[in-house]
């Protein structure tokens, strides 16, 4: 499909005049529906239709004011509070610019609760991905094709891509009834985002190494001024970056906005250092910053004013983790019923995913996605009738499994050089039978592929690139290795090192979380015997893997490869991350690129990483969307040709692709796009779920 930049005329074409005189700037980045994707068929970023699976569907964000409801209704328990005088009436609470949804199947009824399970303190994303709305300023439509207004009412990007103007919703309130204004965005930007103590330190608010400036235009308008074209800023706000919503990011210092009226009391700039530290000490925290971050945690602090459809009523650290309805929720259905319909979400703490799977099979959960994997599928399917739930399958837009190489590996000089040799990497890739991996570990639900976007995605460079150096061809692999002069072999047929230190033995360390990645390593070890390459397979704890990545000790590993967008999610296949396991493609190189050559290590020309990074930088600043997509395709082609990571199988179910919903729940889409960027299952619109 074709995507292009937004001309001024088109932009104006989308402008609608409301009664209040405000602008609704919906669907700006792609006003033309793609012709080749049928109704509900997906396509675009979400990948095309899948055989045997229903079409993609979802609630529609109503942008036409003519279809807006005129009167509002609310849940009975909130109506009771209004009657008692404890809450203002519902029309005052939703404000004059509500976020109107047309639920996928119909208008629902109020009441009931959703039971879920979560897997310990590290699973804070659980609720973020289910009941946070999401609370990003902008969001994608359910087809993952165009940006839509979300917490913000609309946006406008200047033609050169340098100025982004956001409109906020008039009369919109935080969950404590205080108005949400431009000051809340400016507060976050000036006092939180750039602080070492409470900010994230990410580059989301930077372009070309320079800061984006945030200006308050009026109470409900904010302007983001970039020193260079920054056309992807709106997409960053809508996706999974650290500026895309408070729920998942505020405790780390991100979010894009924060309740100034509440959080400023914990911030020394607004009180005093002594007062802020004393507050923290009284609560048992070391220093104001630790306390501030705790108080800004959506999942930990019930007193934090938020904008999500549900608000925290019981923190994650005192299970069960619970949410109740936000009386000031801005989501309403097209008939004016304030959402959510369901008033309570309760999530039990499960230490073990096997128990979680069993409880799910027993029908103890009404909606469950976290912790369920491909391997659970047969048991879950077997109990579908008995426990009255439905299993949904949502193939992802990314690779479920790929071998990651550390291109900057130095510990063993000879092996490091081999890894930096393209023929060697190609041979390794050709020596893997991806079909086997798919059958044994993913129940055949994935598609064998090089590191690549999903077929039919806007960045898809064409089918031939999906199998580039990614077929199973032992003969060619051996020819390539022989060509490198690695012809001497030991008694067992393994190729020998040139320095005489025995056979070529690569080092593989992985952690089995989303799938049996260590098992994949075992299988690859077996397959590489045929090309004379030995592999040492080790299973390592996740934090240890991070530690070893940081000290540049990792050589090879196996993980999911986030690969659906070369500019928004480059970390798995370009050296853009300077720390931790995600950066393992080459942390010293990433440091070199991030610091403009001041730190880290310069990658050799032969690696061609510089070319890819130049394309990446260029694409970031390319206001013309068609050109940007072309550049994106170039990056994928270069990656497939150079095999910087060895994609194995993808576009399957291992990343949040299996979920179940109770048969009593209504408004559950038959299939949704499964993408980290969409923060699935938020794109099933749980606030529209209801019980018959």
């Amino acid at each position: 499909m074709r995507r292009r930049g937004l001309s001024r005329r088109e932009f104006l074409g989308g402008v609608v005049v409301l009664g209040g005189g405000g602008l609704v700037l919906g669907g700006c980045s792609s006003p033309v529906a793609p012709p080749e994707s049928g109704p509900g068929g997906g396509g675009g970023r979400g990948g095309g239709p899948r055989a045997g699976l229903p079409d993609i569907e979802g609630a529609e964000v109503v942008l036409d004011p003519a279809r807006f409801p005129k009167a509002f209704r609310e849940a009975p328990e909130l109506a009771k509070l209004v009657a008692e005088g404890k809450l203002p009436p519902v029309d005052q609470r939703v404000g004059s610019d509500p976020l109107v949804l047309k639920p996928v199947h119909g208008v629902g009824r109020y009441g009931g609760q959703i039971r879920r399970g979560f897997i310990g303190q590290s699973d804070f994303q659980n609720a973020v991905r289910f009941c946070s709305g999401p609370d990003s300023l902008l969001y994608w439509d359910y087809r993952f094709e165009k940006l839509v207004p979300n917490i913000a009412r609309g946006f406008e990007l200047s033609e050169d891509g340098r100025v982004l103007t956001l409109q906020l919703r008039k009369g919109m309130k935080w969950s404590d009834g205080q108005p949400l204004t431009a000051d809340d965005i400016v507060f976050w930007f000036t006092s939180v985002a750039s602080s070492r103590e409470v900010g994230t330190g990410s580059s989301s608010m930077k372009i070309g190494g320079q800061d984006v400036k945030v200006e308050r235009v009026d109470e409900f308008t904010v302007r983001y001024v970039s020193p260079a074209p920054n056309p992807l800023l709106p997409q960053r706000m809508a996706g999974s970056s650290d500026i895309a919503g408070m729920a998942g990011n505020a405790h780390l210092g991100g979010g894009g906005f924060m309740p100034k009226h509440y959080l400023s009391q914990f911030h020394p700039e607004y009180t005093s250092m002594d007062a802020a530290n004393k507050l923290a000490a009284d609560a048992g925290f070391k220093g104001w910053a630790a306390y501030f971050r705790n108080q800004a945690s959506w999942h930990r602090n019930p007193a934090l004013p938020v904008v999500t459809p549900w608000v925290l009523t019981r923190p994650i650290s005192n299970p069960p983790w619970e949410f109740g309805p936000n009386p000031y929720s801005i989501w309403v259905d097209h008939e004016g019923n304030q959402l959510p319909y369901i008033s309570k979400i309760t999530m039990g703490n499960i230490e073990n995913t096997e128990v979680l799977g069993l409880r799910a099979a027993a029908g103890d959960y009404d909606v469950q996605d976290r912790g369920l994997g491909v391997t659970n599928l047969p048991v879950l399917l077997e109990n579908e009738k008995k426990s009255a739930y439905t299993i949904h399958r949502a193939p992802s837009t990314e690779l479920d499994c790929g071998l990651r190489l550390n291109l900057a590996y130095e510990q063993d000089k000879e092996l490091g050089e081999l890894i930096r040799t393209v023929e060697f990497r190609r041979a390794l890739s050709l020596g893997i039978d991806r079909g086997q991996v798919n059958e044994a570990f993913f129940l055949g639900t994935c598609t064998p592929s090089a590191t690549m976007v999903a077929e039919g995605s806007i960045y898809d460079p064409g089918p031939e690139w999906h199998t580039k150096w990614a077929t199973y061809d032992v003969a060619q692999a051996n020819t390539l290795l022989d060509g490198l002069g690695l012809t001497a072999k030991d008694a067992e047929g393994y190729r020998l090192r040139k320095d005489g230190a025995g056979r070529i033995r690569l080092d593989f360390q992985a952690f089995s979380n989303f799938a049996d990645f260590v098992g994949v390593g075992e299988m690859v070890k077996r397959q590489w015997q045929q090309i004379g390459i030995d592999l040492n397979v080790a299973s390592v704890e996740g934090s240890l893997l991070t530690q070893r990545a940081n000290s540049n000790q990792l050589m090879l590993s196996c993980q999911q490869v986030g690969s659906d967008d070369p500019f928004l999610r480059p970390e798995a296949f370009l050296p853009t991350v300077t720390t931790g396991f995600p950066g393992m493609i080459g942390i010293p190189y990433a440091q070199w690129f991030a610091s403009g050559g001041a730190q880290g290590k310069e990658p050799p020309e032969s690696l061609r990483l510089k070319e890819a990074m130049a394309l990446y930088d260029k694409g970031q600043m390319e206001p013309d969307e068609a050109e940007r997509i072309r550049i994106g395709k170039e990056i994928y082609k270069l990656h497939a040709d150079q095999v910087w990571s060895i994609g194995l199988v993808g576009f399957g179910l291992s990343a949040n692709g299996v979920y179940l919903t109770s048969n009593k729940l209504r408004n559950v889409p038959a299939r949704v796009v499964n993408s980290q960027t969409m923060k699935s299952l938020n794109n099933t619109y749980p606030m529209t779920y209801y019980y018959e």
Partner: protein
Amino acid sequence: MADSATAVATAAQDEERISVASQRQLIWWRFRKHKLAMVGAIVVLLFYLVALFADFLSTSDPHASEGQRSLMPPQQVHWFDGGFSPHVYAVRGERDPITLQRTYVVDPTQKIPVTLFAKGYEYEFLGLFTTDIHLIGTEGARAEDTLFLFGTDQQGRDIFSRLIHATRTSMLIGLAGVALSILLGVVLGGISGYYGGAADTVIQRTIEILRSIPTIPLWMGLAAAMPKDWSVNQVYFALTLILSVIGWTELGRVVRGRMMQIRSEDFVTAAELVGGRPRRIIFKHMVPLFASHIIAATTLALPLMIVAETSLSFLGLGLRPPAISWGVMLQQAQNVQAVALYPWMLLPVLPVVAVILAFNFLGDGLRDAADPYDL
């Protein structure tokens, strides 16, 4: 009359025989009476034989994987076809598009004979020579592709062969740890009990401290602190040694108690008066008195080590894949799917149970036999 005379004569012979028999003989005679212990001894011996001849006994390479035969149920062996001719039938598998399970259909037209001393994968026999002869195999087809007596695991590897290789790892790996633990227990417990005083206090405090530290943190800490380039087997071996540094405390306390008891016996005083050095007195005169206890402790510590290994594999601290041990295999089976749909994955429980029972009965028998006060 004649009968009773013979009986008396036999009794007298017995008496004679017993009074001249060495202690070892006495123990053996008594042990033989303990039927269950005999069975236990034989079973343990068999397990060690399996460990020794693992490659010869297995039908295929335990690492040979094939996605197309993932999670295949155990094959039925047919013994007769006209006459006695053991055989299996070829199996075809495909994935059910609805349930996503692999289903396997037997193809009765393809008969694969099962034979003894068949050719299979190559291995080194006891490190002596290379051969490809295996006890069981197939004719006309590679056993690795056709013979799955106990079914296959997720990666399509033969569980029967893996089980046999796991026996080797699991039966051998605890030995060193147990040996060290007994050595430490006897020496330190002995010193503590024999000398008393300051040595006793120090050793007793050490025991108390060691017993107060939960083992899990210790394992986790040490497992993560091991050098990265150690193989899983090396790491695990090191850990068993470290575990034994803690494991000796139990035995240490017992030895100390017995030591203190025996210490005041006349024969020890006598030995001291003759000028025997403490080391000689302890090991020559005192330790044999509770040797039975030490033997029993050994036979009981080994199964505990095996159980510990299975638990630790579960936590990701014991042996890990690609090493093959009972713990590793059980760890791969400890999921709902295996219990519900692929019960053959649970087969490794059987040898664990068998070996633990065998060791325990053996230990019981040995203790009963060696107990000088027993009737």
